[in-house]
């Protein structure tokens, strides 16, 4: 509750929905809305006998897997949001020295978790209720709902166990692991976020439902599927088996809950781990691939930001962005050969990735932004230094994206180069645009899971960036798709390059003016 309340300090939507009572009200409203919509859909479907025949097994499968799916979603969602939480979020640190027992902490934390993420199970449960009523599966729904509540507590308890164990593991690992430990953590977090994103692919979801329902027999010994076995047994008329597995599932909840208290008591280390990055003596770097391109001040900021991108938990979701886009793009890209529509969508994917990372570049400084004010840093050094990291990252992503999708699509080198050149320039354009928005609407506050930009930045920046990208690459895409032959293709290519170069020059000037305003006074002094 302390964590919820601590983050509910502002006067915006996000802080409002962190108030416990507001969450309950939101759940009730969502329940009613989803149930009404589902009822209307169900009544409509029930009028067609063919649809009824098709729907019944799907609904049956959904009710069987409901608790397991909710557990999986809640668990991964909680892990991802735990991972991307700010490491300096200190609202709950007081817990470590106040007279609060491990049991009291775990109860509070599990309840907070259940309330905060209740919208997910509420939506699933409310959507299935009318359908279950209409198609005569209300008993299954009732059992699935009750077991889903226990599934939430299982997910929350398992997260507490992992948090406590990881904390102790981290403490020892970091003391010995240094750079390797940091890199391993970054890779782990990126993979976790990737898994989470892939999980929400519709094809992946329906496949999981099918796999679970068709393999329940042999899977009875998997504890998280006991809820599914119970519901399935009820649907098959076997009350005894259903009750037995329901009881086992409830017992599992209790067991994991007490396991969470045990691990908290035994493994929790309240003090932040002292992480040693290396043991070598200080040897200032004299050379770098970017020396000669960037000044010493610009290089210093770039190095700092690149380190932050890999080491900061709250930056993991930005670090993972290109990988998520890349993987989901590779899944979707055509392997039939030739230039497919997906490569063209790649401009927007690459551009959006650059915009999002660069919009957060300035706000991500947090309160440490004071450093950039007290040292002799020119506006130019600030703009180039802060823009270099998103630009480098975006450029690497663009190369990876178009080369990999080009290989899968069996494109020739000239075709890949023709895509890469405007893409790389687009990265610089979008980086500057994102920086302008980030400098205009920064958010330096350091609360958990800060987006580092104000709400206005997202509302204005993202749609505008799409418009800019459309204007910039429009001629190139038109030349490719219009069938106007080689001259049309090259004309489109040339016009796009010209537009992007002009945009870069204009945006650089705009960013510099905005940066000068930002640097004229330390934020928060008005």
């Amino acid at each position: 509750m302390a964590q919820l309340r601590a983050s509910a300090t502002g006067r915006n939507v996000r802080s409002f929905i962190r108030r416990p009572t507001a969450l309950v009200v939101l759940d009730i409203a969502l329940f009613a809305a989803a149930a009404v919509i589902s009822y209307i859909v169900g009544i409509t479907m029930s009028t067609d006998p063919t649809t009824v025949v098709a729907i019944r097994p799907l609904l049956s499968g959904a009710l069987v897997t409901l608790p397991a799916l909710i557990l999986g979603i809640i668990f991964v969602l909680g892990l991802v949001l735990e991972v991307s939480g700010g490491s300096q979020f200190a609202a709950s640190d007081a817990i470590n020295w106040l007279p609060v027992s491990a049991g009291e902490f775990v109860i509070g934390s599990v309840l907070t978790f259940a309330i905060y993420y209740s919208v997910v199970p509420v939506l699933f449960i409310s959507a299935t209720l009318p359908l279950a009523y209409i198609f005569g599966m209300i008993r299954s729904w009732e059992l699935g709902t009750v077991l889903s509540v226990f599934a939430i507590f299982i997910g929350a308890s398992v997260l507490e166990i992992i948090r406590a164990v990881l904390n102790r593991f981290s403490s020892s690992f970091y003391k010995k692991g240094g750079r390797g430990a940091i890199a391993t953590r970054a890779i782990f977090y990126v993979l976790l976020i990737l898994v989470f994103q892939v999980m929400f692919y519709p094809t992946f979801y329906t496949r999981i439902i099918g796999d679970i329902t068709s393999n329940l027999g042999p899977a009875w010994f998997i504890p998280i599927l006991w809820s599914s076995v119970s519901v399935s047994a009820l649907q098959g008329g076997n009350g005894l088996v259903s009750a037995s597995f329901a009881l086992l599932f409830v017992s599992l909840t209790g067991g994991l809950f007490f396991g969470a208290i045990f691990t908290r008591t035994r493994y929790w280390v309240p003090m932040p781990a002292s992480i040693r990055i290396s043991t070598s003596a200080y040897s200032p770097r004299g050379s770098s691939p970017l020396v000669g391109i960037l000044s010493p001040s610009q290089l210093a900021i770039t190095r700092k930001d690149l380190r932050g991108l890999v080491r900061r938990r709250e930056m993991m979701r930005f670090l993972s962005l290109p990988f998520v886009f890349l993987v989901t793009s590779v899944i979707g890209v055509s392997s039939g050969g030739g230039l497919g529509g997906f490569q063209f969508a790649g401009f927007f994917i690459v551009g959006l990735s650059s915009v999002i990372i660069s919009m957060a570049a300035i706000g991500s400084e947090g309160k440490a932004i004071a450093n950039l004010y007290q040292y002799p840093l020119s506006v130019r050094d600030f703009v180039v230094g802060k823009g270099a990291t998103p630009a480098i990252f975006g450029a690497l992503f663009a190369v990876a994206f178009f080369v990999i999708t080009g290989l899968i699509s069996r494109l020739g080198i000239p075709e890949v180069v023709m895509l890469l050149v405007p893409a790389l320039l687009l990265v610089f354009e979008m980086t500057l645009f994102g920086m302008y928005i980030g400098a205009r609407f920064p958010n330096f506050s350091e609360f958990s899971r800060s987006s580092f930009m104000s709400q206005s930045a997202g509302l204005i920046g993202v749609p505008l960036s799409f418009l800019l990208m459309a204007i910039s690459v429009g001629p190139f895409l038109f030349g490719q798709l219009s069938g106007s032959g080689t001259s049309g293709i090259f004309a489109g290519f040339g016009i796009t390059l010209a537009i992007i170069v002009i945009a870069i020059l204009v945006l650089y000037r705009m960013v510099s003016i905005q940066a000068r305003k930002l640097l004229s006074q330390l934020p928060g002094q008005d």
Partner: protein
Amino acid sequence: MKILMGLLRPDYGTVMVEGLDPVRDPIAVRQIVGYVPEVPRLYDYLTGIEYLDFVADLYGLSPEVKKERVDEFLTAFGLKDQGNDLLSGYSLGMRQKIALTAGLIHRPKVLILDEALNGLDPRSAKIVKDTLLKLSSDGVTILFSTHVLEIAEAICRKVTILDKGNILAEGNMEELRQRAGGLNLESIFLNLTGSADVKAIVEELTA
């Protein structure tokens, strides 16, 4: 202090630092001024050495000078063994030492210190005090803000007592004693601010 550094725009009036206007030319001012804020805002994801390397680059120091000065200060402050640890694991005193090093690394002409001895162990505090005295005798102008009056009394040649934005008194210790009476700076301060009688407050708090 923030106005002197160009971190805050003045509502009115001007201030000059070594002949430079911090509003018009903040970069030139920051090049010659070392600033240690009351609460150092360090980058927790950098090590102590990485942070100092970053600051030294912003001051334009060469690699050889960087190495010499970083090693020098880390050894003096007893941080040699923790130099490669992330700042997130540093105590308040350690962070203060890093902030002090960052303020001194470029050999500033003017030093602005805001409660700079917060959290320092006695040995490090003594090093800082003696360093400040030495720098002052070498011609460095030091503006030191503190609520720990014993420190001000020990190291400051000139003391300005402020209360609610007004200068109540200014001068060396002898001049202040003549003006306000009292043996030490604490009693001088309390006499000037009319808050010498705290007995009733203490009795109420401990009742």
